[in-house]
């Protein structure tokens, strides 16, 4: 079981979390770019679905980052993070309903703070028992508490609204300068603003004494006790901070959907999702979970709509990612950034392109077969004809199966050949870089 030092979410090479140094030019540029992306996104992706997806990505970034305070920075594998996002959502939605009834003079723009405080409150409370232990014991306690809270959500309809959940109307209050938060775009900007601020705060956290000691606790809790720190305290404080941001994320979700239900907001499945995608994004890097958040939305909203086989694809993607890129997407990116720094990126680009093409061919064949299989099972009522990437396939004809299989095999074979070649190139490039580093050409 994961003893804390074994909760190594990243291969050693990728282990170093970014550390804030005084604002340098590059850093300012990156943050400005992030802000710009947040502002510009709705102008680039304009459909209403895209807008909801952007909003979801916005608050999920906060949630996944908050989860990574536990997993990546503190080595705490939690199976119950949804408890804090979910309870944050519920407290917020109750607060919004009270505000709508005129019992609570809080404008909507500040509601996320209510969620944050609620998240922090429950994290203080439950964290007191969970964070007394680390490693597997911690993981299992969070699993137990997660299951308990999830079960409770159905038992106390008075608070959780039962199966139907609690609904609200975010357009309460008079509005301010025409901002009523009715239109989805206004909500998006609310979320984007919080997303930016929370991301900045959590990034700042990695550079504070508590943040650093938290890393030390992850690496070697025993030793931390001998340099004056109470590890339980450290975990507890970090847990609370994570709870606070989780609560903010949960609150924004409540504002976005105007409905919160116990059955999924606090479920262990939800918690599992945060874990999976934080990891997939890359727990070893500060920005990894942000990628994870985007992937989570793409997978659950877009992928599930594009294909009935989405869970199959998701399962496969997980399996392969963990096997071949255990540092997550972020580590892949950083590897290439490293190449670029040493001016080697161009050397591997043709290989990337070739691999990409071969991969696509293989994927095309495989996906065609998967889609036909699912079509036969789920859409049988529509007949054997199906549309796949603009083509029409006859799922009952042997011919389409054979063609797909051949496409797949050709793609896969080409991919394998190219991959071997690529690996050789890759290691050659790495050796060269190592040598240059050894010669002191550090960048």
């Amino acid at each position, binding site marked *: 079981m994961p003893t804390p030092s074994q909760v190594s979410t990243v291969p050693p090479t990728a282990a170093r979390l970014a550390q804030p140094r005084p604002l340098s030019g590059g850093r300012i540029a990156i943050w400005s770019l992030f802000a710009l992306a947040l502002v510009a996104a709705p102008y680039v992706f304009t459909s209403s679905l895209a807008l909801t997806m952007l909003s979801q990505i916005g608050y999920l970034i906060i949630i996944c980052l908050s989860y990574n305070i536990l997993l990546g920075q503190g080595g705490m594998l939690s199976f119950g993070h949804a408890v804090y996002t979910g309870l944050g959502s519920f407290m917020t939605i109750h607060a919004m309903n009270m505000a709508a009834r005129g019992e609570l003079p809080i404008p909507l723009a500040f509601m996320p703070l209510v969620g944050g405080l609620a998240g922090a409150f429950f994290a203080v409370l439950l964290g007191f028992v969970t964070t007394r232990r680390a490693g597997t014991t911690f993981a299992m306690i969070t699993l137990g508490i997660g299951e308990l809270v999830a*079960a409770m959500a159905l038992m106390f309809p008075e608070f959780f609204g039962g199966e139907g*959940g609690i609904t609200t109307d975010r357009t309460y209050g008079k509005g301010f300068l025409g901002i009523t938060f009715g239109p989805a775009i206004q909500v998006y900007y609310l979320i984007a603003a919080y997303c930016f601020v929370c991301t900045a705060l959590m990034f700042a956290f990695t550079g504070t004494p508590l943040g650093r000691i938290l890393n030390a606790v992850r690496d070697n809790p025993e030793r931390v006790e001998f340099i004056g720190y109470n590890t339980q305290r450290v975990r507890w404080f970090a847990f609370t901070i994570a709870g606070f941001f989780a609560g903010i994320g949960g609150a924004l979700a409540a504002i976005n959907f105007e409905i919160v239900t116990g059955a999924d907001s606090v479920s262990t499945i939800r918690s599992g999702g945060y874990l999976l995608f934080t990891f997939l994004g890359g727990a070893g890097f500060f920005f990894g979970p942000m990628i994870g958040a985007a992937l989570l939305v793409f997978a659950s909203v877009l992928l599930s709509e594009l294909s009935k086989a989405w869970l199959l694809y998701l399962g496969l993607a997980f399996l392969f990612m963990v096997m071949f890129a255990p540092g997550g997407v972020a580590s892949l990116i950083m590897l290439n950034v490293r190449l670029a720094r040493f001016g080697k990126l161009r050397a591997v680009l043709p290989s990337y392109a070739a691999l990409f093409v071969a991969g696509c061919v293989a994927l095309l064949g495989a996906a065609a077969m998967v889609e036909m299989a699912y079509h036969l099972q789920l859409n049988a009522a529509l007949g054997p004809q199906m549309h796949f990437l603009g083509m029409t396939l006859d799922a009952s004809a042997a011919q389409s199966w054979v063609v797909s299989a051949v496409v797949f095999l050709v793609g896969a074979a080409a991919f394998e050949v190219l991959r071997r070649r690529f690996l050789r190139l890759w290691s050659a490039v790495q050796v060269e870089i190592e040598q240059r580093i050894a010669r002191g050409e550090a960048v």
Partner: protein
Amino acid sequence: QKGETVKIAWLDPLSGLMAAVGTNQLKTWQYVAEEFNKKNASGVKFEIIGIDNKLSPQETSSALRSAMDQGARYVVQGNGSGPALAIIDALDKHNARNPGKEVLYLNYAAVDPDLTNSKCSYWHFRLDADTSMKMEAMTTFMKDHPEVKKVYLINQNYAHGHQVSKYAKDMLKRKRPDVEIVGDDFAPLAQVRDFSPYIAKIKQSGADTVITGNWGTDLSLLIKAANDAGLNNVSFYTYYGAVTGSPTALGAGAAGRVYMVSYSHANLPGEIGRMRDGFKKKFNDDMYASAVYHGFSMLDAAFVKAKSTDPAKVASVLEGMKFNSFNGEAEMRKTDHQMQQGLFITRWEKTSDKYPNDSENTGYTFVPVKYYEPYVASTPTSCQMKRPS
């Protein structure tokens, strides 16, 4: 109107706990759409867009938005009052904020009475009978059966289960004050593997009748455990005995002891019978969501009457409209948009020449034992419908 394509978005689960049920229902919508496309009075073509809402209200709102992006102006949904409420809530807001782009919601199976009472909406129309109506029929049936003396209630611990329990108690008190309620249990939703402790408790209580709103494995395992323990002098009154999976679990052991209340049954003749048989032949699966038929026949009639497929116009003609169900004339009650229809009490028995429809190839079927006219099961409503001005 003629030749128009009407896109209907189906928002129900294709993954998770209810995947099997959702899959069956999606097939039913697709199949019945084909049937109606062959011949309908308004001359439209129906197209079903199936979207997985994962049984989650939040996912449902995403799914709804995507449905609207794809041009669907009718949505249908049936599993769970949570997603139902989410749709109602979202449509109330959307339709108010986007006049001319209204979307209309047909609920074919979510039976929470609140949906046509405290939470009723102008854009929501329910084709199924709600929990209270079904309980009305069930208790009326018990009124004529004096052997029902001690009733045990066992339900899932969430909104639906609580409603079943509440209505059972209220109505029995009214109709059979002599009946003793010897137990009122709630087991968590889809968590219990082993129902034998509950069976022991039922046996201990001396109950002769069990009323349960359980569905899915919670029903299958309950009945299985009862069969195993040899609890054969107790009858089970159920809501969802025919839903995917349950007939297989009922098997021979439950014959003669399991009753079900529904607006339809597996051996109805006529048009619905033809479709059911066709469905079975095509998919080797039971078609039990017969309300789907109502969905199409009602829309078809409304299109003709409104001379349009525009949801805003269709909604106004639907109010109080009478149309042909597979079982005589039915009415969409104006006050709360709850369809008024007759209800059957059926019992699990061996198939016979008269009732040949084999459920899930078990050799058994639900045979009708009593039919109640719409007025019997009709329940009053507290709905204060807000209509767009």
